[in-house]
C-alpha cells in the first residue's frame, strides 16, 4: 500500500470575509425572500425557481465534476476536486429554495393551489385537455414530488460515497479508494444523466406542459457545467492568490479551467441553436408556440440579449490564450458565466410568468434579486462552513503529486 504523504500541504484559515459576507448575504436574501413570499407568493415562487435551478446546477454539477475527475483519471483537475466536493454540500440546502415550489404543488394535490404556476397541477384543466390528460401519468403532483425526493436521495447517497471516500483518503492515504471512486463514478454518470434531465424537465420544461424538446436536459446541463466550473474557478483562483490552496498551481491549471468554460459556453450555443433551428425549421405549432412569446415585444430584446450574454460575450472573453491563464480575466469570465446562467434560467421560466399574469414583457425586480442573493450566498455560506475543518485540496489522492507538476 502506497500510504505516504507525497505533497507538502499546510491547512490555512479561510478568508474571514467569505464567512462574514456570505452570512450577510443569506440574511439579506432570506429577508427579501420572505418579504416577497408574503407580498406576492406567485412571483416569489418563480423567483425561487431561479435560485433553485442555480443551486441545483452547483450541487449536481459539482458532483459531476468529481465523478468526471475519477472516471477519466484526469490529472490537472485533482487540486480543484476538493472545492467541487465541498460545493456538492449545496445539495443539503437545495430543498430550502425548492420549498416554495414544492409547497405550492403539495397544496394543489388537494386541489387548493394558492396561485397558478404549473398548469398541469390543475385537475380541471388536465381533464379538459386531451394532451395533458395523456401526459398525466408522468405530470402529476405526487409523481413530481416522488421524483424530486428520489433524485435528491440518490444524489446524497452518491455524495456520501464519492466525497466521503475522498475525505477518508485525506487521513489514510489509501490509493485504492481512487479505484473504488472510479467504479462508483461510472454508475453515477448514468444516474446523473437521467437525474439532470428529469430535473430540467420537471421544474423548467413543465412550466409549459404542452411543449416538449428532447434536447432540453442537455441544454440545462451545458449551462450547469459551465456554471460549476465558473464557481470552482472563482473560489480556487481567489484562494490561490491568498496562498490558501497548495503550492504548485500554475497558469496551466488556470488555462484548463478556462478551457472548460470556453468549451461549455460553445456547447451551450450548439445545443441552444440546434433546439431553436430545428423547431424553427420544422415549424410545427406544437413546438413553435414556446418560442413565439420569446420573440415578441420586450422578450424579443431579452432573447437577442441572451445570445450576447450567454454566448458571444463569454466566447470573446475566453477565446484568447491569455484570457484563460490570466487570473484577473479568468475571474471576470467566471463571474460573467454564472450571471449568464442565472439570466438563462430567467429567460426559460419568466415568459410563463408574464403569460400567467398578463404582464406582457419581461419583469425583473427586487424579488428576483433577493432570491439570487439568497441562492449565491447560501452556496458560499455552506462552502465556507464545510471547508473550515477540511483540507482545501485532496492531499491523499494518488494523482496529487503529478497534478502539481502538470504542464500543458
Amino acid at each position, binding site marked *: 500500500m502506497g500510504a505516504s504523504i507525497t505533497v507538502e500541504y499546510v491547512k490555512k484559515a479561510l478568508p474571514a470575509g467569505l464567512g462574514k459576507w456570505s452570512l450577510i448575504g443569506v440574511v439579506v436574501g432570506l429577508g427579501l425572500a420572505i418579504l416577497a413570499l408574503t407580498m406576492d407568493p406567485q412571483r416569489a415562487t418563480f423567483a425561487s425557481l431561479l435560485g433553485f435551478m442555480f443551486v441545483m446546477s452547483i450541487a449536481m454539477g459539482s458532483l459531476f465534476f468529481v465523478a468526471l475527475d475519477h472516471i477519466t483519471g484526469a490529472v490537472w483537475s485533482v487540486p480543484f476536486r476538493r472545492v467541487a466536493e465541498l460545493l456538492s454540500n449545496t445539495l443539503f440546502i437545495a430543498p430550502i429554495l425548492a420549498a416554495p415550489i414544492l409547497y405550492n404543488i403539495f397544496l394543489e394535490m388537494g386541489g387548493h393551489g394558492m396561485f397558478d404556476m404549473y398548469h398541469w397541477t390543475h385537475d380541471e384543466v388536465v381533464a379538459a385537455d386531451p394532451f395533458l390528460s395523456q401526459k398525466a401519468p408522468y405530470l402529476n403532483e405526487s409523481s413530481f414530488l416522488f421524483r424530486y425526493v428520489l433524485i435528491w436521495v440518490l444524489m446524497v447517497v452518491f455524495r456520501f460515497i464519492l466525497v466521503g471516500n475522498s475525505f477518508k483518503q485525506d487521513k489514510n492515504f489509501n490509493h485504492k479508494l481512487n479505484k473504488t471512486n472510479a467504479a462508483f463514478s461510472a454508475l453515477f454518470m448514468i444516474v446523473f444523466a437521467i437525474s439532470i434531465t428529469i430535473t430540467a424537465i420537471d421544474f423548467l420544461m413543465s412550466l409549459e406542459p404542452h411543449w416538449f424538446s428532447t434536447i432540453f436536459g442537455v441544454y440545462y446541463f451545458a449551462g450547469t457545467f459551465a456554471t460549476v466550473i465558473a464557481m470552482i474557478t472563482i473560489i480556487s483562483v481567489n484562494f490561490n492568490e491568498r496562498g490558501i490552496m497548495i503550492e504548485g498551481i500554475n497558469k496551466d491549471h488556470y488555462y484548463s479551467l478556462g478551457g472548460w468554460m470556453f468549451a461549455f459556453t460553445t456547447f451551450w450555443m450548439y445545443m441552444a*441553436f440546434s433546439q431553436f*433551428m430545428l423547431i*424553427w425549421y420544422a*415549424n410545427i405549432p406544437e413546438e413553435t408556440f414556446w418560442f413565439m412569446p420569446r420573440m415578441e415585444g420586450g422578450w424579443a430584446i431579452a432573447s437577442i440579449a441572451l445570445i450576447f450574454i450567454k454566448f458571444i460575450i463569454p466566447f470573446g472573453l475566453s477565446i484568447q490564450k491569455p484570457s484563460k491563464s490570466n487570473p484577473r480575466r479568468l475571474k471576470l469570465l467566471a463571474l460573467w458565466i454564472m450571471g449568464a446562467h442565472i439570466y438563462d434560467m430567467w429567460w426559460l421560466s419568466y415568459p410563463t410568468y408574464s403569460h400567467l399574469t398578463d404582464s406582457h414583457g419581461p419583469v425583473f425586480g427586487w424579488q428576483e434579486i433577493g432570491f439570487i442573493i439568497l441562492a449565491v450566498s447560501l452556496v458560499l455560506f455552506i462552502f465556507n462552513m464545510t471547508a473550515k475543518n477540511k483540507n482545501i485540496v485532496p492531499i491523499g489522492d494518488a494523482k496529487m503529486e503529478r497534478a502539481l507538476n502538470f504542464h*500543458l
Partner: protein
Amino acid sequence: MNNEKLYALTALFDTPDGIMKAADAISGQYSRFDVNTPYPVHGMDDAMKLTPSRIGYFTISIGLACMSLMLYFIFWTNNVDYPQIIGGKPFFAFPTYVPIMFEITILTGAVLSVAMMISVLFRFPNNAHPLHDSGYMKAVSSDKYGIYIEAKDSNFDYAKVESLYKELGAIEISPVYYDEEELNWTPQTWDPKFVIGTLGIAAFTSFSVYMHMNKVLFLPPFNWMMEQPRADYGEESEFFADTYSMRVAPAGTIARGFMPYTYDNPDSAAKYLSNPTVPTEENLKLGQRKFTSYCSPCHGNLAEGASRLRGQMPPGPDLRAEMYQNFEDGRFYHTITKGKGIMSGYEAQITREERWAIVNYIRTLQKAYGVPAPKEETEAVAENMDNNTEASN
C-alpha cells in the same frame, strides 16, 4: 553536392533535463536556434522563451473572411439569382445558413492555415533543408535530444558555441554544412517533370471523377436512393382506401397565381368587376397588339366593324357606337372572356392583364372617334347583332 557553407553547430543530449537546461541557457544569448526532440517536451516553450504563436489571428481572419463570402454566396443564390420558397421559409432564412457558415469557417480556417504553413513557411515546392539527411536529424528522431544554433545568428562564434555546448554537457557536437544551390533551388514552370506530373494528376482526377459520376454512383449501395419504395401515378396504391396513388387535390384548391373567373352573366360582371389596370402608354400598346391580333379580324382595325373576313363570317359590331361607349369596363371584359353570340370566349388565348389592356384600347379608340354614331345606325347594328345571335342559335 557542394557542402561547404556552415549552416549550424548542433549538439545532442541524452536526457530531457539536459535539453531543457541547454534551451534555457541558449535562449538568453542567441535568437536563431531551435530544439529537436523525439516527442513534445512539456515546458519547452518556457525554456526556449517562445512568445505565444500568432497563427490564431491568421486562422480567424481567413475563417471569418471565407464565412462572409459564403454568407454572400448563399444570400445571392437564394435571394438574387434563383429565389425559391423552400419549406415555407423566407428567402433570407438566416438560421439555416448558420451551420453552413460555421462549417465553412472551420474548414477554410484549418485548411488555409495548413496551406499557408506549407507554402510560406516551408517554401513549397522547395523541400530542401540543411538538416535533412544529417546524422543529427537521425539521432533526434530516434532517442536523442538535439539543439542547434544557426551560423546566421549575430552572436555566433564557432569556438564560443562549442565551449558552451561542452559546458552544458552535450554528448556529441557536430557542424552541419549545406549546399547553397540546392537550398535556393526555385521551381521551373516548364520543367518536363513538373509538366508531366501536372498533366498526369489532371488526367487521373478527370478520369476518376468521370468514373464516379457515371459508373460508381450507379452501383449498389449508392443507387439505393433510386430504388426506394415510392408511389408512381397510375399505380395501384396499397395505402389509400380508394387504391389511387395519384391523389386528387382537395375541393376548392386553386393553382398558384391562378385567378378564378366566377361571373356567368355580363350584368353581374358589369356591376361588380372594376378595371384594375391603368391606361399607361405601355398598357395601351399591349392592348393595341392584342386587339390587332385577336379582335380586329371581325371588329376592324379601328373597331369600326369592318370585317376582313369577306362575308365568311358576319362582321362584328362597331364598338365606337353610343351603346358601346356606355358599356361598363366589366361588360367588355366579360364578353372578351366568355364570348357573346357567335363570338367565342378568349379566356384561354388572352391573359387577364391583356384582356383589361384591350378594354383600355377600345376606350381609346372610342375617344378618338369622339362623336357618337347616329341613333338609327346604332340600332341597326344592334339589330344586326341580334340577328346574328339568332342565326348562330
